[in-house]
């Protein structure tokens, strides 16, 4: 065996894994979600409380989350209330942030909002612009991925994927990643959850907050159990997407950031050694 063939065998083939549709929509979404998150927190700051039901309880109690500032004997503190339980969140910058001599009393600190100061009007303009772009990109992705087989091949978990979950969990726990031609069981479950549950959910709950859309489709208010519940679900979905983002980045770094990034930029991905080559692969 020559050195060259040994090299090839230890590397696995270079496969064209991500289509242009997947790559372009991926990066547009990345930009959209960045702006949607930071302007969303700006919008939340205008009324930093979440409720269950049609309306916001000012004279009755139906809030599930409140972020604010309170006065204590030791001076003002940031406080977050979840289901009636109070937490001091000054250290996290929730409710109160900024330098000790010039504290800022917003729910989320200016470091994570666009603009960095209170400007609901600008937050909404930017939020809705990227909301439209996000939804348009979703249409492109679903159409292209349905036609080119990305959804069937990589996204929808099959029975054999479900059966493979325990082994995949064990592999991930020991940081043994298989770089195959298609996605692994946990990858499929994660992306299926994002594309088929979280993305539609965040769009529909967003639309349910629009009084115009409420007139057009009042069933959406009922589907989510009221406008304020829709707003709460919108927020929770945001948290889940942030959690997905963190895991996504950790996995990219753990699985080999250069290979992963290259596949999302050029489409070419270095598969694990032992992956059978097919026509179209590069050595």
């Amino acid at each position, binding site marked *: 065996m020559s050195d060259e063939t040994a090299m090839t065998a230890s590397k696995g083939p270079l496969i064209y894994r991500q289509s242009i549709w997947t790559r372009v929509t991926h990066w547009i979404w990345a930009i959209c979600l960045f*702006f949607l998150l930071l302007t969303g927190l700006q919008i939340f700051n205008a009324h930093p409380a979440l409720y269950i039901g049609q309306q*916001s309880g*000012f004279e009755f109690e139906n809030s599930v989350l409140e972020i604010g500032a309170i006065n204590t004997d030791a001076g003002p503190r940031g406080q977050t209330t979840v289901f009636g339980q109070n937490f001091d969140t000054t250290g996290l910058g929730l409710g109160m942030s900024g330098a000790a001599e010039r504290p800022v009393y917003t729910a989320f600190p200016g470091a994570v909002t*666009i603009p960095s100061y209170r400007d609901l009007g600008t937050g909404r303009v930017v939020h*809705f*612009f990227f909301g439209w772009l996000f939804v348009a990109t979703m249409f492109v992705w679903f159409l292209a991925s349905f036609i080119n087989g990305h959804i069937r091949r990589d996204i929808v978990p099959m029975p054999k994927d479900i059966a493979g979950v325990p082994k995949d969990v064990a592999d991930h726990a020991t940081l043994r990643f298989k770089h195959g031609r298609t996605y692994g069981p946990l990858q499929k479950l994660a992306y299926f959850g994002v594309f088929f549950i979280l993305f539609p959910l965040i769009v529909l709950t967003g639309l349910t907050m629009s009084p115009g859309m409420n007139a057009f489709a009042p069933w959406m208010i009922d589907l989510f159990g009221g406008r304020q519940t829709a707003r709460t679900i919108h927020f929770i979905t945001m948290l889940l997407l942030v959690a997905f983002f963190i895991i996504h980045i950790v996995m990219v770094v753990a699985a080999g950031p250069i290979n992963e990034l290259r596949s999302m930029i050029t489409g070419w991905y270095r598969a694990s050694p032992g992956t059978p080559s097919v026509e179209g692969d590069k050595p």
Partner: protein
Amino acid sequence: MSGLITRRNFLRGSAVAGSGLILAGCDQFDFLADKSGVARQVMERANVLTYTAQRALIGEQTLAREYAASEIRQGQRPNGSVDPSTPEYTFLKMQDFASYKLTIKGMVDREVSFSLDELRNMPARSQITRHDCVEGWSCIAKWTGTQLGPLLDMAGVKSTARYAVYHCYDNIQRTLSGDILYYTSSDLIDAYHPQSILSYGLNDQVLPVSNGAPIRLRIERALGYKQPKYLHTIELVGDLAPFGKGRGGYWEDTGYDWYGGI
């Protein structure tokens, strides 16, 4: 490595990109608040898209949801101005709005005015609706008033009119160079909408000062800033540019979307 991206370069690059993202929220994107900026103006086109899409999708007469009386669980939360201090308003309030007049003028065949008693004696409509503030909260209340549409017909809206501008007694902002008065505007679809009522009653009581006495217009398929309180004049126009900063309303001038249905 054959490529240009070495691991060291990549890590350096990601560190720069990553810190850029983290710092981004600090102030890199504050320029989007500049309403004359190109990026801002491009992004504001999305509001026009929303307006166009919703007008195409939603029937002109389609009603906002009306709720059962059991859904009224609290008083209507007052927001914005709760007691204007303009001399005209203070005078009207002192005499319980006896000399109040609602005027419809501008691009109409004849300017008309109505006293509060005249408005109260017109066919009334009551609706229990959800008020959605742009800040994010909602409040359900019963609003009683008379529809704006028939009044506009009495004045005879000219075919060239495109918008109704709502002028208020509300000195929402006091500056060194004088008061800034609240105003907003809508298209004629919203003005003629069956639920667009000149309300004088709230939860079976006389509309209180904190909620806009003597008359507050309801535009139920839009957010709270499109429900002008302390209304005194409705002006039919073809162009919103001459009013305020030209964006169609007090809050709109500060950057809120004009349509307000989202």
